[in-house]
């Protein structure tokens, strides 16, 4: 008879541990664990500690408590308003990237001639950094950029359009850099949906709109939520374009800009750490809301290869 719970002959300790998923292979995790602790856990804990040790200047201004930095953040409109300024950019950008990706990814799903080239063009902006994109935007859409030269040249407009150095400039730059991510993610989620489901819906009499709203979209929704979160996080920590094609002291005074200002101009590491923590907290709140919404819809398998 083989070993069972009641059998007096016990298996070797190693087998019993392996049964619970413990074996020597786990040792392979050690290097990664060390790296994570040294490079992430420790600095994070250290930074979190810093936030409760406000500088003398902050204590004078906002009260002699360990929470002076947080009091400053919530009381000083220059800091607190950055939440709304950043959300005002990141939320619409993320939403637009996801929404635009859906029809494009949907249309590009079947095989056709030139598909690879088209995909490459769509995804290429990923390889351009935010700085390069912003620089390009100034050349293309700046006051004396090509768009304005063309439009004034053919006489459609007299005064050049103001597309850079403001909200629009940052918005455009974030769409350009964020879209490829959203597109790639939505494409892979779409390929995870069995094409036979749509074929089945067709034979049952569903036109394209019904097929999309009743079959494809509900199955895609969890993937869209994930895509939204990733593009949102990407856009929320916007820094270079807010500075290069934005209005860094006005309508694009995003969180990372004031964070950098506290670090570079004011040399206040404690306040910098506080702003970094708040940046993370706001992101986490948005992510949590989206994930909660995601948990309410069907998330099971959708039959495809994804």
């Amino acid at each position, binding site marked *: 008879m083989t070993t069972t719970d009641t059998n007096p002959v016990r298996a070797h300790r190693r087998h019993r541990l392996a049964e619970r998923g413990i074996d020597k292979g786990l040792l392979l995790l050690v290097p990664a664990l060390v790296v994570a602790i040294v490079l992430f856990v420790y600095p994070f804990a250290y930074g979190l500690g810093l936030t409760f040790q406000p500088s003398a200047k902050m204590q004078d201004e906002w009260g002699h408590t360990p929470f002076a930095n947080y009091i400053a953040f919530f009381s000083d409109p220059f800091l607190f308003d950055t939440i709304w300024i950043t959300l005002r950019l990141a939320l619409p950008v993320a939403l637009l990237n996801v929404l635009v990706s859906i029809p494009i990814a949907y249309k590009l799903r079947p095989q056709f001639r030139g598909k690879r080239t088209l995909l490459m063009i769509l995804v290429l902006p990923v390889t351009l950094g935010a700085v390069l994109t912003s620089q390009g935007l100034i050349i293309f859409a700046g006051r004396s950029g090509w768009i304005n030269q063309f439009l004034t040249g053919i006489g459609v407009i007299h005064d050049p359009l103001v597309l850079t150095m403001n909200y629009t400039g940052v918005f455009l730059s974030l769409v350009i850099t964020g879209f490829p991510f959203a597109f790639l993610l939505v494409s892979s989620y779409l390929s995870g949906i069995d094409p036979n*489901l749509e074929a089945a819906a067709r034979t*049952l*009499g569903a036109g394209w709109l019904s097929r999309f709203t*009743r079959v494809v979209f509900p199955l895609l929704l969890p993937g869209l939520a994930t895509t939204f979160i990733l593009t949102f996080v990407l856009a929320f920590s916007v820094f270079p374009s807010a500075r290069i094609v934005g209005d860094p002291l006005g309508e694009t005074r995003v969180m990372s800009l004031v964070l950098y200002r506290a670090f570079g101009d004011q040399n206040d590491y404690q306040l910098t750490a506080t702003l970094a923590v708040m940046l993370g907290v706001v992101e986490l709140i948005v992510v949590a809301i989206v994930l909660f919404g995601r948990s309410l819809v069907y998330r099971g398998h959708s039959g495809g290869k994804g």
Partner: protein
Amino acid sequence: MSSIQSAGLTTLEIQDVGRRFGGSQALAHFDMTVQGGEFIALLGPSGCGKSTALNCLAGLLPLTSGRILIDGKRIDTLPPEKRDFGMVFQNYALFPHLTVAKNVAFGLTMRKLPAATIKTRVAEALALVRLEPHAGKLPGQLSGGQQQRVAIARAIATRPRLVLMDEPLSNLDAKLRIDTRAEIRKLHQMLGLTTIYVTHDQEEALSMADRLVVLRDGLIQQIDTPEQIHERPKNPYVAEFMGYRNQLHGHVVSAQDDVVGVRVGELVLNAHPVTPLTVGDPVTIAIRPDDLLPVGPARAVRDRNVLTATPTIVEYQGQSFAVELRGPEGVVLHSRVGELPPQPGEPVQLTVGALRALAYPSADAPGAPVESTSRAEAVA
């Protein structure tokens, strides 16, 4: 009884339908007329064009040539959603995010029927496949067999003019396959829905269909009743596919109306010409393992047909023994013996009735290029 009845298709005419993928012809000259209520099986190995034919019928693949008519009206120009067919997919293709009831209701909802009608029709369809207790479950919570029954219920709930089934049983295990097969047949007899059924399993096709269509390389080889296809395959290819595993090549040396003498190497076998043959014709003789049997006390030589062969492999297969033998000039033969199997290495004499040895002109042998079924007829 049930209100799910054939929605009045009298004839389905498939006229010279063809489908080309890039440079290759997946289906050509598909020509047949289906009567209302018929159960047709498209049969052939993978790549023979049977699924292409089904997808062309469903409208999921556009035709490259030909027409499809229902009661004289062209339907090949309609998109699938306007054809009013029901289709059962090999992988079920159930909507994973909808409950069983909503899956079955899908087609009815698309037809914008009143909610009360939808409810009764869904209940009816689920009752037909005995899945009422599972109406509220998601497809992922059901077994494979149950999922396939949901797919069937979904396809017939709309009372389609035509039901298309694409290898619906191939993902089920052996026992379930036989049960579900009987169930599909029963549903068909009950509802009289005109059905086109694709399969690669000849047993499945034989047991279910009113008529079989055997396909090879995109071309129809034979359209006939199961009995005809089984007993009188039209060419060596169909014969091989229907289990005539022994194929011998030779020349006609004597010809009468229903018996020809064929010289195969040293010996002469009496065989039945499927198409008229004359002396000198090269022929292929096809024999089923069940018809090529050892001579013994209980079995005399039939029609003077004797082949000496040495068993090489004897396999016990439950009810009988499959015997592989090496015959004259090294040709491999197959026999199926009920009891007292021959011993490997001990030569035996095999015999076959002349009527059970089918002789075909050799031009149509498997491997020889077959351009169309008319080749066999042209010889005839």
